[in-house]
């Protein structure tokens, strides 16, 4: 039960930050330079969240770390290509 509520808290954190990033995208939708910084913020937040989450669960190893870093980078690049042109 404790484990479940801990997960819930961590997922609530990621959902809350997603809402904040969505809001930032909405208010800066016409300023692509600012959106590029927000995009970087999204990726860095996600990588930190993933690493912290895995570490708290005692599952952090090289492969899990690579997965979060790789996925964060991929998502950054996906958004970056849409923002660059």
């Amino acid at each position, binding site marked *: 039960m404790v484990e479940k509520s801990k997960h819930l808290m961590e997922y609530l954190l990621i959902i809350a930050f997603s809402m904040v990033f969505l809001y930032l995208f909405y208010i800066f939708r016409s300023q692509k330079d600012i959106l590029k910084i927000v995009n970087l913020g*999204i990726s860095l937040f996600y990588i930190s969240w993933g690493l912290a*989450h895995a570490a708290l669960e005692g599952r952090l190893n090289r492969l*899990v770390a690579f997965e979060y870093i790789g996925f964060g980078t*991929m*998502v950054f690049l*996906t958004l970056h*290509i*849409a923002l660059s*042109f």
Partner: protein
Amino acid sequence: MPLSTIEKNPTSIKYWRKNPKALDKFQFIYHFLPHPEKKTRATLLSHKSILVYCLLIFLVTGLFRLIPLVFPGVLGYASDVNIRDLLTYTNQRRKVVGLSELRLNAKLTQAAEEKAVNMFEKNYWAHVAPDGTEPWDFILRDGYDYIYAGENLAKNFSTSKDVLQAWYDSPSHRDNLLSTNYDEVGFAVQNGILDGYETTLVVQMFGRPRSPSQIASVFEEDSILKEKGENKIAVPIAAVSPNGGPEVRVQTASSEKKSAIVDLGVASKTVSLAFGGFVGSLLALDVWYSKKKGILKFTGHTFAHLTLLVLVIVCIWFFIRPGVII
């Protein structure tokens, strides 16, 4: 059981030994679904695949940057921006907050056109030219004696409405749009090739003349709109860049729609959405299939990856529009 029956039975190990291709076909599904025995994600979501995706995105970005150098004008931005709409939307915005309408001034319009042509010729995108020429230099050169003046710039937009919306959303540009210091405005909408991309530049110049008697009349405004309006056939202006670079093509974009062979805004957005959709679908499949088969994998959280990807797709789909303002 006769041997021939065993060899046709897919539950028999001999069937798979005799039909290695069928085995391959069966294994193919694990490119898309998590493996129940190996307890791994789909091959297309493996670490190697993520690395390949990153490299692919780099490659596509590189192509979008390289193509304009080799084939200038192939990639660009489709545009249907015109002065009449820009003036109407500007004044609509001012009206909403109770401000007086701006009159279209011939000298400010001329200054805006010169600024746009100058940006194409010298291949820059800024308020101040590389040689230090400022917006006020264009205004003064055209004989507009002002007390206050301002400039808004936009490029790569599809419609006049999008241009105004972008300016309105930016506090510094909105300050210009809704300033009580200005009585007049001039616009330029110019097509050309900037940095190898076929694009449309929009220049908006504001001013208040030193003498109130200089303020443009309704007749002057009408004649400018007629001159720049729907009936005018655009005359291409040819110029060669001073640094001996590729030829700079500049064209007044009074009313004609302009479209490059490939619209870069649409292309980059499509690539991002298609890629995001593909990886998102694989992640959704992973969540569903793992739950269905009770597969516990020692990996990162797929649901978290999916949440992030959905966030990115929503941002691209709803908030990213072509166009840049400064």
